[in-house]
């Protein structure tokens, strides 16, 4: 499909629920960075949950809800961008299944017909990280870096659903992804490699068993510390929620303290692009990023 340039920079913006529920800082920073990059985010009217949180209870309903969201974007004539890996997982996966599997498409379209809608398969769904890489491109982004963050060592948390299931996400090899390393290096920071970069945050089961995310957070924090990182970056509100707000609970039983700032990737990119920290909602992080800001103060 060939696209004209204006369309490339205009997206239907699927916000999802975890971001407004607990991670407004992520939205603030993402919108600010998009403004700087000339990406227009068109809000989607009448959308609902992406479907992921109810996949466990009723898969058909999850698919129908995801498909309904996609149909709204089809009607807008825009590709979807989302900053949540969970939403990207649900929407990109559903889009792929609906396009490729006629049996599922017919079944879900039967439901959608009853609400006067139809899935046509005319748009793409992308996580914001992919838009940066595929629609803007590293070369162009590099030219926009005004303050390379050379004083920083930053670790990246990939998360699961932006990459998997790979058959539907069609992004990078989930066993050996590189996009987050590239995005970190783009900012001028050193990419701090560590054990378990791709490990799950456990957030999906936080309502069932808090022990799982807490032990995932503990492992991650220890590995990131060992790597000498000053901060960790995430590209998902749920991963961020687990990793930023649970450090104390995760470490306490083991007499461990981490104090590891966890930045939303657009915050890091924004800093490197010269956007003032106040406009990137850095003060809203639970673990404060003061030392990170101090380390880059006066850099230019």
């Amino acid at each position, binding site marked *: 499909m060939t696209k004209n340039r204006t369309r490339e920079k205009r997206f239907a913006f699927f*916000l999802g*629920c*975890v971001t*407004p*529920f*607990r991670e*407004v800082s992520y*939205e*603030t920073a993402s*919108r600010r960075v998009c403004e700087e990059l000339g990406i227009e985010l068109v*809000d*989607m*009217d*009448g*959308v*609902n*949950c992406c479907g992921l*949180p*109810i*996949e*466990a*209870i*009723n*898969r*058909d*309903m999850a698919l*129908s*809800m995801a498909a*309904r969201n996609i149909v709204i974007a089809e009607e807008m004539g825009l590709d979807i961008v989302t900053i949540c890996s969970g939403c990207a997982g649900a929407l990109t996966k559903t889009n792929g299944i609906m396009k490729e599997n006629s049996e599922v498409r017919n079944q879900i379209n039967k*439901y959608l017909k*009853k*609400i006067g*809608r139809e899935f046509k398969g005319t748009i793409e769904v992308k996580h914001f990280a992919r838009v940066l890489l595929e629609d803007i491109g590293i070369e162009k982004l590099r030219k926009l870096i005004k303050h390379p963050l050379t004083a920083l060592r930053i670790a990246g948390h990939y998360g*699961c*659903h932006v990459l*998997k*299931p*790979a058959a539907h996400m069609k992004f990078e090899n*989930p*066993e050996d992804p590189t996009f987050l390393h590239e995005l970190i290096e783009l900012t001028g920071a050193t990419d701090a490699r560590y054990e378990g970069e791709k*490990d*799950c945050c*456990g*957030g*999906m*089961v936080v*309502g*069932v*068993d808090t*022990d*799982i995310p807490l*032990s*995932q957070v503990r492992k991650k924090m220890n590995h990131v510390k060992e790597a000498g990182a000053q901060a960790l970056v995430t590209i998902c509100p749920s991963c961020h929620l687990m990793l930023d707000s649970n450090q104390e609970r995760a470490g306490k039983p083991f007499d461990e303290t981490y104090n590891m700032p966890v930045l939303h990737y657009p915050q890091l990119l924004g800093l490197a692009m010269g956007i003032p920290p106040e406009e990137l909602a850095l003060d809203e992080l639970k673990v404060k990023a003061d030392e990170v800001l101090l380390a880059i103060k006066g850099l230019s």
Partner: protein
Amino acid sequence: MTKSWGTFTSFKGTTIEIAAPDFTEVVKKLTGGKDLTACFQCTKCTAGCPVTEKVSIQVHEIMRMLLLGMKEVLETDMIWRCTSCYTCQERCPQGIDVTDILIGLKNLAYEDGIGPDAYRENAKSVLESGFAYQTSGFRRKKRDAKGLPALPEANMAEVEKLAELTGLKALLEEDEAK
């Protein structure tokens, strides 16, 4: 043959008890389920699973229990502690969509009225507001103050209709009646 080192020497005439063959057939119809018999118990799925230390039955064991018709899978900690990380699915050398099967099993469990409340709560919230997590008035005000656009309002008539058609609504009502 000069000597036999055991009394069981042949499968001839032996039947292996399948606990509930119907259950296996139901599972085969789930997304990914048609490949159940391709599992050769290599344990690669378990090797990459982030919750192995937290469960008493491992995911490769679930796969075999399904073939043996053991409905007990629905009450194992494995399916409920599974984070849906898809690592098993990506790594299975037999191309089995293991995570999708686990999701299907969770659906079956809810049809039987079992399963943790967390997902039920998500579903109830979706039927109330269209979203699994509802942003509080306090946070909405905070967003307004920051100049962020108003949150989208879901079309509840459409959400409810879909919940009826997919059986989600009936499922929640049955749970409520219990």
